[in-house]
Structures are given as structure tokens and as C-alpha cells.
């Protein structure tokens, strides 16, 4: 084929955390895991992980104590909806920010 100087610019990217920017700033509600209710954390066995499976952004880790990467979590709440033991609560970011501010003021 002719070797023309076309750049052929398209919007393509490798998939992975951050390919749509730091989407954590979109979040209105933050998922907070209660480890006393969370199945793998409670049993100390690799199990359940429905939150990891359903997370559309792939930001939940598959550990005994699952971690949520808040840099990218958009706060959609699907994990909280799917959790069979209701271990995940969606908490208003404003409330958490307010609490964090109070802690900082005390220090």
C-alpha cells in the first residue's frame, strides 16, 4: 500500500486504571466496607468477591480485606448493591470530608 504521510489520528488507548482520567473526583458517595460483615475479611478466606466482579471500573482488589482505589472509584454504588452481606455502605462525600476536616482541626 502507498506509504502516505497520514497520521490517522484516532481516540484509542490501552485499557486500565486512569485511561479516562482521575475519575475519583466524579464521586458523590463513597463506598465504605464494614470488614466485620465482609465475607472474605470475616472468614479470612478468599471467597465471595462479588464487589470485585461487579465493579465496572475494576478498582476493587481481590484481597482478604478488599481495598477500593478511591483515585478512580466513581461512586456508582454497584458494589454496595451487589454485596450479599450489605457490608458496603455508600456514604456522602461531603460528610466524610467534613469529618476529615474536623480531625485535621483537632490535630
Amino acid at each position, binding site marked *: 500500500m502507498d506509504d*502516505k504521510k497520514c497520521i490517522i489520528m*484516532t*481516540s*484509542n488507548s490501552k*485499557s486500565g*486504571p486512569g485511561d*479516562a482520567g482521575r475519575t475519583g473526583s466524579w464521586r458523590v458517595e463513597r463506598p465504605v466496607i464494614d470488614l466485620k460483615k465482609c465475607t472474605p475479611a470475616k472468614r479470612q478466606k478468599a471467597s465471595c468477591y462479588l464487589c470485585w466482579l461487579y465493579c465496572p471500573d475494576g478498582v476493587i482488589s481481590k484481597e482478604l480485606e478488599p481495598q477500593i482505589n478511591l483515585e478512580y472509584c466513581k461512586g456508582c454504588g454497584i458494589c454496595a448493591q451487589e454485596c450479599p452481606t450489605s457490608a458496603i455502605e455508600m456514604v456522602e462525600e461531603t460528610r466524610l470530608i467534613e469529618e476529615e476536616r474536623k480531625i485535621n482541626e483537632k490535630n
Partner: protein
Amino acid sequence: MKRIESGNVAAALGVKLAKTQVVAAYPITPQTPLTEKLSELIEAGELEAEYITVESEHSALAVCIGAASAGARAFTATSANGLLYMSEQVHWAAGARLPLVMCVVNRGVGAPWTVWNDHQDSISQRDAGWIQIYVNDHQEIIDTVIKAFRLAETVSIPVMVCYDGYYLSHTHMPFDVPDENKVDTFLPAYSYKHTLNPESPENLNTVTMPFARPDRDGVNKPGYMDIRHNLQQELRTSIPVFEEIDTAYKAIFGRGGSPILSAYKCEGADFIVAAMGSLSNRIKDIVDELNLEGLKIGVLSVHLYRPFPQAQIIAALQDAKGVIVIEKALSYGNQGALFGDIKAALYPCIKRPFAHSYIIGLGGREIKKADLYDAIKESCTTSETFEDTSRWIGLNR
């Protein structure tokens, strides 16, 4: 090998020779026997391709977009309201830079419902970012379909090959079918820059920010406007590329030489009639008569309509006294589409020819030789009394 067949068969044979791998089409009105012929060829094993029947034209082009993204050479065809129904995907294919080829068998659009010829369907899609080529006869249909694949794949921009419904699609004419081995040499196997590959997954055309920003690996990625600017630049690049491809085709098959515009008796002409598609062939007869009467007049057939060949238009028209644009489509509320484009192209010229506009043959309204003759002659003789709007030929009959 010479054959006498319809324009639709000429197109289908071109698609076959191009070794198209995926054909997706909606088979019902407004569709043409072009896709029926393709399904016959595939069914008979003459073309090794996947024929995907879909429930709409929107899906037909969506399937082609998927196929091309996965690395297959893909083709579809449509007409009129079918083209409008796939419009969203038409724009998408261009933005995604997919080298598809689509035949648009030109027909009028509803309402009111019509199945007959004019150019409103493809003209309405002129701003989508596709390359649009209008052809005048069956030989040009088959040759252009083959060239269109090479053009699309060279610049990675989709190409519409537009030919007149009924005047070309359903009439029989002799044409030469190029030799298969020679076509294989002319048109090598397809490859696409961002072919989907499970080994190396990519996101294609997801939400793209207004601004450029770094990707996952910190590499700066263009924003929407940069991508659109690149499409515009490379559409302009595709004009000389198409000329080169046509030259290469001519070297092998002996046909071609005027892929952008073809001029008939325009050398030293005082007046030039500009038109697109089979209408330009009809006007040749009128021009022959007027030349016999002593008028120096020629016909300029515009093949490449998008990207619009401004430099070639200027070179072809600037020395004439007058340009008469006769066309089968318009930008409603304004004027003839080709007329507007030609006038804009001529604007930088110091000495400009006058420009007259005629609208003709909408929705299959009969195009009478006498009407063409009268209109062209009137333009040549009473140029100064003309208004800057389009005159309609053949109303109320």
C-alpha cells in the same frame, strides 16, 4: 472481459474483485439489487465473504464498522432514507477513520415518499467526513469501487461511491470487468492501524476530552478537536492520493486519467456547465449542439465532491466567462449545494466567471433535453439579468 449488465451488477462485481470479506446490508426498500447480487455471489462461493443480514441500515453500517475494526475489508450499500437512517454511523465511521466502502445508489428522500433518482441523499451526508465520488457510467462504477478500497485503505477514510438510481443502477450497459489477478496486484490485502487484537486490548473512540491529556502510561493523547483537525487535514491529503491511485490503475487497466474532474470541450470554452453523475453525460449532447451553433461551451463533470477539489475547480473554471451549475440536490433554504461550493472555490480568483444555478430532476422528475438546451442557452445569452438564487427546471408537469 466485456459484459452487458446493470450498474448494480457492475458495483457487485467490483466488490467481488476487491475480495471484500464482510458485506452487511438491509435488504428491503430502499435497497437495490446490488446487495442481492452480492448475496448470490457469496452463496455460489464466488466471493469468500461473510454476508450479514441486519434489521436496519443503521445496523448494516455498525456491522461494517465492527468488521473493519477487527481487520476485515467491509462493504455496504444503501439509498435515500436508508442512508439517512444510518447517518449516525456514517459520521462515526469517518471519525473512527475506518476504511470502509459504501455504494450510495442515489435517490430522492422523503417526505413525500419517493423511490426515484436525485442526489439529495448523499449530498445531505457531505459534511460527515467521508470521501464522496460521483460516477457517470457503469465502467466508472466498477473501476471506482476497486479504486475506492485502495483510497480508503491508504488514507484510512471511508469512501462513498455514488451512482444514479435507475439511470445507472437499473439500466444495462457494456463494461469491461478487470482481470482478477491484476486487481489483486493493484489492491493488496487490508490492514488497519488499530485492528482489534485480544492479545493487546485497546479502547477505541471512548469519551474523548475537549483537551489533550496523558493516558495510562503518561503518553499525551489528542483531544477531540485535534482528532477532527487531523481528519480534515488528511481529507485534503487524499486528493493527490486519489490522483496517484488513479494513475496506478490506468497503468494496469488502461482506463482513468480524470478521477477528480472530467472536462469535455472545456479547452478555451467561454461557458462551462458543471454537473455530477449521469446528468453530465446527458449535457454533453446539448453542448455538442450549442457548439455547432457557434457557442464555445463545455461540460465539467465533478467526480470528487468531498474533499472538494478547490484548486482543480479554479484551474478548470477561472478562465471561462460563465459557469452554469445544474444539479439534483440543494441545501434547502439556501441554494444548489454544488453551486455554493463552486462559487466559494472561485471567490479568491481576481477575475471570476458569472455563476448560474439550476435545480433539475428531483424525485425522478423527467429531465428533458429541450429544457436543458433552453436553460443553458438562456444562461449563455442573458447572463446579466440573472438572480443569485437557484432556478428550477421542469416544475409543474
